[in-house]
């Protein structure tokens, strides 16, 4: 009996101790909180914290002095709030690159050869690089006779490597300490190598191992580069070889060549010896003394002969770049598109975090750049121009959408985590509309116009019962069956006529008038080869031809994307559409006519607050509709 009492007492003590342990975490439900209150707090946490509430937050919510209004205000503006709103517009615009983007002219490939000692070594080169030596002009800098290898564009190399003599190798190549290996690559004698004396590189900057190690597994100290690619000049010269005609078939090839050497273009003949800025596309195709610049900073390394890898970065990071789900080797050509997307996300995040005027999503002059974007806007983007534009006197971009002079000068390509605000990209900047990510994602003028119409005016192009009869009418605003949509679409598309499709080269009005009297049809009804790439023969007459995509409205073409931004944001549908987009996302359902009263009220709040999202979201979170968003019986 005595033992039983002791046991009972012990059990009571143990139970009490256990309950004490539990008490700290398991509180009885607050008498003043209903199940609906708890659910409201949970959905508000999901929307404002980006996660479900913790036990501690629920305990705080149960306190009698908990003020939900103050709690909502306190979390409007946090990172999860900004991420929540960014998600609304990223879902609409999907500003991430697909797999087909390429930055083109800046790609630096590499070929493995045997040096004079028989050691395997890589030689970096650019495809199509012009060289003064006829045997290697527009080819790899070592001939098949010299290396035993036939290096072909976009195809595997063939042949059996043989030792390249030291004399030949020194004559055709040189050693460089490149930007991807050395933090201090601009110095005459760089020393701060990745992972060694540059001991704490940015954790998000991770070159692939194949760029860090030599063939024998030793750390790469220097890379061997074809001499022309290693040139560091800022300005080069137009090169003319003197070859004016392709030799007839059957003509013996010059020693070492596998195909005829390139002939001079008319432009090269006419402008031989003239200076050319080395960042431009013209320099890449018409000079022999414009290389990849100091530390090869104008070029992107590939670890292969075709498309190779360059850096590790995530494929998936739905919680932001700080919480990636993975980190994988990526092709060099994806490096800059990846950062274009991050630029757009940064821009949106700051728009919402700082509660700026939402119209700036389309009209803002500012943006955010990091090291790779700084490298891109300073040098790489200039390599996009100029080809057909040169015939109109534009050898390099005259009015780029992002002026290179406005890029922070001290950011280095390796500064991937350091983001800087650029207050003004240039006179043509217009929010996301002039960012590479938007312009590449929506490559044509019509695609750009259509996404604006849908995302920011909440309208879509749906033809009625249109019958598409045969027609040769080029003007889609007139063609039966097309006109119902294209009457709206073509004028919108015209705003983007000055930004080349699939690119972001800007065609200034001074050189490319919307209707160009110099571009007339010839007797066969064709435009000259000069005009044809940029002007539309379908809209040419005796007075000249119209810039491609501009026929919907010549004045819109001259207004540029910045004009589209003003037009869209001043439209009466803009504020109502933004309200509807955000309300629909927070309510978790499409809005209906039953929501008209709420939407009208929210739109008034949004407009009177100066198009700020914070008052709009606060209004949604406090509405009865939000509280009862999941109210099905």
């Amino acid at each position, binding site marked *: 009996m005595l033992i039983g009492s002791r046991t009972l007492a012990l059990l009571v003590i*143990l*139970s009490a*101790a*256990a*309950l004490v*342990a*539990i*008490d*700290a*975490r*398991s509180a*009885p*439900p607050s008498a003043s909180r*209903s*199940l609906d209150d*708890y*659910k409201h*707090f*949970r*959905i508000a*946490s*999901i929307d404002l914290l*980006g*996660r*479900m*509430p*913790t*036990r501690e937050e*629920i305990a705080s919510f149960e306190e009698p002095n908990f003020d939900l209004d103050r709690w909502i205000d306190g979390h409007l503006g946090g990172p999860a709030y900004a*991420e929540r709103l960014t*998600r609304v517009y*990223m*879902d609409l615009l*999907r*500003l*991430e*690159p*697909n*797999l087909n983007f390429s930055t083109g002219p800046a790609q630096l490939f590499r070929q493995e050869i045997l040096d004079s000692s028989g050691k395997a070594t890589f030689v970096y080169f650019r495809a199509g690089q012009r060289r003064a030596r006829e045997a290697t002009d527009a080819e790899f800098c070592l001939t098949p006779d010299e290396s035993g290898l036939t290096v072909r564009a976009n195809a595997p190399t063939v042949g059996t490597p043989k030792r390249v003599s030291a004399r030949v190798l020194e004559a055709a190549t040189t050693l460089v300490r490149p930007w991807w290996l050395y933090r201090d690559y601009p110095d005459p004698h760089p020393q701060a190598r990745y992972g060694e004396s540059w001991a704490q590189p940015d954790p998000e900057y991770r070159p692939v191992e194949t760029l860090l190690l030599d063939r024998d597994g030793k750390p790469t100290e220097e890379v061997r580069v074809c001499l022309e690619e290693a040139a560091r000049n800022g300005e080069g010269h137009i090169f003319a070889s003197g070859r004016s005609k392709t030799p007839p078939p059957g003509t013996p090839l010059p020693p070492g060549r596998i195909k005829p050497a390139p002939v001079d273009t008319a432009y090269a003949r006419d402008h031989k010896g003239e200076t050319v800025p080395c960042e431009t596309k013209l320099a890449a195709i018409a000079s022999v003394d414009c290389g990849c610049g100091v530390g090869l900073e104008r070029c992107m390394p590939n670890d292969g002969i075709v498309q190779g890898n360059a850096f590790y970065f995530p494929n*998936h990071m*739905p*919680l932001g770049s700080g*919480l*990636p*789900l*993975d*980190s994988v080797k990526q092709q060099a050509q994806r490096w800059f598109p990846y950062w274009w997307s991050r630029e757009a996300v940064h821009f949106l995040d700051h728009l919402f975090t700082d509660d700026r005027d939402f119209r700036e999503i389309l009209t803002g002059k500012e943006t955010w750049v990091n090291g790779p974007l700084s490298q891109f806007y300073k040098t790489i983007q200039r390599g996009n121009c100029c080809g057909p534009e040169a015939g109109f006197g534009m050898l390099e971009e005259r009015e780029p959408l992002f002026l290179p002079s406005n890029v922070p000068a001290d950011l280095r390509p390796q500064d991937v985590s350091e983001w800087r605000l650029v207050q003004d990209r240039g006179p043509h900047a217009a929010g996301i509309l002039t960012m590479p990510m938007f312009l590449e994602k929506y490559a044509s003028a019509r695609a750009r116009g259509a996404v604006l119409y849908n995302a920011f005016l909440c309208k879509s192009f749906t033809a009625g019962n249109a019958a598409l009869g045969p027609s040769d009418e080029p003007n889609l605003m007139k063609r039966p069956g097309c006109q119902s949509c294209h009457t709206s679409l073509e004028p919108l598309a015209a705003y983007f006529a000055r930004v080349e499709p699939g690119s972001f080269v800007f065609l200034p009005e001074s050189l490319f008038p919307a209707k160009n009297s110099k571009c007339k049809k010839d007797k066969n009804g064709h435009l000259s080869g000069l005009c044809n790439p940029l002007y539309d023969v379908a809209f040419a007459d005796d007075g000249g031809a119209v810039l491609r995509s501009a026929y919907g409205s010549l004045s819109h073409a001259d207004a540029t994307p910045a004009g589209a931004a003003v037009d869209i944001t001043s439209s009466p549908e803009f504020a109502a559409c933004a309200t509807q987009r955000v309300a629909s996302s927070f*309510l*978790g*359902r499409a809005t*209906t006519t*039953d*929501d008209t009263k709420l939407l009208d009220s929210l739109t008034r709040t949004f407009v009177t607050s100066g198009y700020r999202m914070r008052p709009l979201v606060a209004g949604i979170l406090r509405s*009865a*509709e939000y509280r009862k*968003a*999941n*109210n*099905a*019986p």
Partner: protein
Amino acid sequence: MSRSRWAFSGARAAVCLLLIGCVTAPRESILAGPEAPIAPLGSAPLDTTPKTDLRMVPPEVYLRTYLRLFGGLAPTDAQKAARGAQGGALFDSWDDYVSALGFPDYRLDIPRQAQTNAFMIATFERLGVALCDRAVEHDLRARPPLPVEQRLLFAFDLPPGIVDRAAFDPRFDVLHRTFLGYPAALAPSERVPRFFQLFREISSLHPQASPKSKFTSAEAGWAAVCYGLVRHPEFQLY
């Protein structure tokens, strides 16, 4: 007369009566309205609020919550911890789950999933089991025992001996709040008894489990409760 003949005659008579009724019934007419006004019995306001069912928790929210429950780890660290020494037996990789969870893929213009599907539910299940099992190891099997405030999910001590309702309820409430965001006392009345039944059945059947589990009976019981809550529709919907 036999019973069957009586039955046959009766049926024949019924058919005849029916036919006569059809022929002779007066023609029906439908009045345009009630003959007299219908007196109201009461009044109720018309609820015009749009009705919407529960929506899916955005995958970003699911993932962020999952990581927090896992101890606030980064995704790659959580993946490493979840895989542990067992490799893919308990957890594959985020890359395997990312599309199943309903994330959009902006690169390929794949929109986010707004509704659950069988593949997604299976993924929730696999992720949930990994979370609960690792939490049992972390919270309940740590030696020396972890202080309650350092435990991730099971923020309570296991009671000695057989667990009855009095011991079960407050501990279940901790888990209920953790996963579903409100006290178990506000849940439908059958929820706590059903979870208690689940706990008891798993605990009692556990010794017979084959192959042998590394968990004790009580640990297996609490793990099962955890599985039930992490896979509960209220966890994935809001």
